[in-house]
């Protein structure tokens, strides 16, 4: 198997893991923050170099150079492919920006050790190619949010019920799949539990309550980092898509489509800023699932592009709200706040990231959303129209939140609320990526297209699946 020139993937996993152990022993929060920042930046550098190295190799999948994992557990489970190559640096960047934009007033409440552990687990999940490995890592990654909820004195019941069901169904489904051996198509016994597990982890309605609960009760940063990398979608790509019968995918698609519209409508009427964001995220992540389920080259490519825009743009929107919370505390969308005058950079960032996530022209999400809609309408001409409705509702929700947060009144403050340098850096980085990806979309789309091709080629031919006849259309 082709190898990268250096063990960059394992380094990207190990740096935050080791740093998590060190930081857990550090008493001073500012020192912990500095260590966390260094470790996460190192991981970001590793994943970026891994991406470039992978592109240079020109192969569909590549492993690490010295295969440290193979020596430890006897199997090399980590690899980089077209799907994960751009995803890993994006996720690393998200962690870096979250740590970077954590203000001094909040560093005592934000657990850097758990964050670094979550980073390590997320990176490991996203480059793991082994089914049981993915399941183990996903199960482990449910732990940090649980402890955070516990430490904050919040009820963990909703989270525990859903995550226990998720892990249990995933283990049961994969066990059944293992017993089936080399059958190309999974049976009912394995497909349904895996599908249900994926639905729970992705927060598809009606099993999405844990997601809003997590956003309301955990710190904003933790909730953001646990949900926005879309590890559940990764599990679907590796556990469900390769062997699931067509009808399973159609159910997944239908439920995701309904969730996308439902969550967009819910985001539009929310009075709590965190619930607003959780529904916005839910709607956008469901669009990713709709694209994955379409199992057509165009639809899948669109889904993967929207995935990238969720990780970058929507996470950026979340980070903006988090920065606002750091200044004004937990607030609601009941009245006009008029914050533009004090934090114009955050206002612009909110608008840019929000509109970017819903596919506004010139931003990273635009072409992805266009491709997704085209692919899905090609597969399901009638219900595909719901996607457009979801996008329209999300746009309304974003603008409503923008007007409520940043306009409508004159906010009086006796202290300076201006953004700090790290925050400004975060805003500029996100803006550059969102606009850069919007103006020059071809490299990202090309990678997504290659990834989509790999995913489709991994699926056995299933006549029951409604495959889109792409060749009939010139463009969309």
């Amino acid at each position, binding site marked *: 198997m082709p190898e990268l020139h250096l063990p960059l993937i394992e380094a990207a996993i190990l740096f935050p893991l080791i740093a998590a152990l060190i930081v857990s022993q550090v008493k001073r929060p500012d020192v912990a923050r500095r260590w966390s920042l260094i470790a996460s930046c190192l991981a970001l550098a590793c994943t970026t170099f891994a991406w470039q190295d992978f592109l240079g190799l020109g192969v569909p999948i590549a492993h690490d150079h010295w295969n440290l994992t193979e020596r430890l557990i006897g199997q090399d489970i980590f690899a980089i492919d077209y799907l994960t190559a751009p995803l890993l640096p994006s996720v690393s960047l998200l962690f870096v920006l979250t740590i970077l934009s954590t203000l001094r007033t909040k560093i005592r409440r934000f657990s850097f050790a758990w964050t670094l552990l979550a980073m390590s687990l997320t990176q490991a999940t996203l480059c793991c190619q082994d089914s049981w490995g993915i399941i183990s890592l996903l199960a482990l990654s449910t732990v940090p949010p649980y402890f955070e909820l516990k430490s904050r004195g919040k009820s963990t019941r909703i989270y525990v019920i859903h995550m226990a069901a998720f892990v249990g169904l995933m283990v049961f489904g994969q066990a059944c799949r293992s017993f089936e051996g080399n059958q190309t198509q999974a049976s009912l016994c394995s497909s349904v539990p895996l599908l249900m597990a994926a639905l729970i982890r992705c927060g598809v309605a009606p099993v999405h309550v844990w997601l809003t609960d997590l956003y309301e009760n955990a710190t904003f940063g933790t909730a953001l980092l646990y949900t926005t990398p879309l590890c559940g979608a990764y599990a679907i790509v590796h556990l469900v898509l390769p062997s699931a019968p067509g009808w399973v995918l159609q159910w997944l698609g239908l439920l995701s489509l309904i969730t996308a519209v*439902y969550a967009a409508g819910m985001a*539009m*009427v929310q009075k709590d800023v965190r619930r607003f964001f959780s529904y916005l995220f839910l709607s956008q992540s469901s669009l990713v699932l709709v694209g994955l389920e379409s199992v057509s080259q165009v639809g899948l490519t669109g889904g993967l592009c929207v995935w990238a825009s969720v990780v970058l743009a929507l996470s950026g929107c979340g980070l903006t709200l988090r920065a606002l919370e750091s200044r004004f505390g937990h607030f609601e969308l009941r009245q006009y706040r008029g914050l533009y005058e004090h934090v114009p950079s955050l206002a612009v960032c909110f608008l840019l990231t929000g509109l970017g996530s819903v596919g506004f022209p010139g931003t990273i999400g635009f072409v992805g959303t266009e491709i997704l809609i085209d692919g899905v309408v090609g597969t399901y001409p009638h219900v595909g129209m719901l996607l457009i409705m979801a996008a329209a509702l999300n746009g*309304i929700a974003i603008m*409503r939140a923008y007007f409520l947060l940043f306009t409508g*009144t004159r906010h009086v403050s006796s202290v300076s609320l201006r953004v700090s340098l790290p925050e400004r850096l975060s805003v500029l980085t996100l803006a550059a990526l969102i606009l850069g990806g919007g103006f020059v979309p071809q490299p990202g789309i090309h990678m997504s297209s290659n990834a989509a091709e790999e995913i489709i080629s991994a699926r056995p031919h299933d006549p029951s699946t409604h495959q889109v006849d*792409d060749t009939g259309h*010139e*463009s969309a």
Partner: protein
Amino acid sequence: MTLLEYFTSRLGMTVVAAPAVAVLGLGGLSLVGWPPSERIISRVIQSAVILGLISALAVLGVMLGFGLTHVPVEVGDWVHIPHYHFHIKFLYDRLSVPFVILTFLLCGTVGAFAARYMHREPGFTRFHLCYAIFVLGMVVTSLAGTIETLFMGWELVGLSSALLVAFFHERAAPPRNGLRVWIVYRVSDAALLLAAIAMHHLHGHGDFDELLGANSWPDGVSHLTDWQTLVVGGLLLLAAAGKSALVPFSSWLPRAMEGPTPSSAVFYGALSVHLGAFLLLRFSPLLDASPLLRVAVVSVGLVTAVFAAIAVRVQTDIKSDLSFASLIQVALIVVEIGLGLRYLALVHILGHGCFRTLQFLRAPSLLQDYRTLENALGEKPATRPAGARDWIYRFALERGYLDAILTEYIARPVVRLFEACDRWERAYGRWLSKGGQPPSQPESNSLLED
């Protein structure tokens, strides 16, 4: 590629590139926290508009000189993957060239006016950035050679409109009205996007040359069947109605007057409000293929014209008055399009745009005008038609109840449904968590507040 084609193509690209560079420059500097001075901002906008105008005039000169009526400028595939490509192309023809020249002329004039009008206003940079986005959106929409390109410009115009309606941040009414405008625009955008997708899947093309034949505007021919034309045309009519404030979406137009006068002038007096009519003109070959669609277009236009003519009689502020006066003309333009009088409609757009911009820009000095008029007449002119029946008066005063109807029968049921879902979800969450701290219940709904 001949030298002439090369020259025209470069000129054609400059028309679009000039406002795009202005947007990127102003936006980039504002984002990094170095907003330029008022003078630099004004000069950037003016330079972009002048460069764009000169290039557009040069293209027109080439077209007239060489007898060309159809000059496509290919940018190429923005995105290209197997089975999909996003093609960008600009089209210079008898429809787009006059419209883009009108855009530059009016934007240049209003830009110069705004530089003085907005002097020392705290949001000077914000205003001009939104204004530059608007110019770019208008140019892209006017020159679009594919429906995807048109959609990009269409959305840029919508965003800049909503942000400028909400320009005066310190009061609640502007953002509230800005949100209303945005909601109608999103409906319009969704309809246009649906039409685009429908065209692709029915015909396989988004390129206007492929879709409406290679003949230059207005001699295109639709290749869709009757019912396909009706579906696509219906969606386009919906999109046009939203953008041009035709019935039943007319209520957003007076709300949009919350913005600064320069933006009101160029958006709702001259350019943006005509975009719906422009869209119908661009797809006018579809109207030829479906008599039913033509009837629908004429009906919408007539109803809007009558409604606006009634409503305009009772407006108490000059900008609302002018907005309804604009609406009457836009509705008549739509009627002309429905009747197949395309050149008349185009000339009507050009003339009306210029005239209404002048009226809007003079609106702040209206009191002075009235005093002059009163002095000349010797008595106060009548402002209310004598003998008007009360119910017509109330109908006009309430602007045809369109706002209330849309709110009560469309928006509120949707919002109530989702609010009920929210309550159920919260109750379910409380039941599931058993003892968790329940979040407070929503009290009011700012989406529908007025």
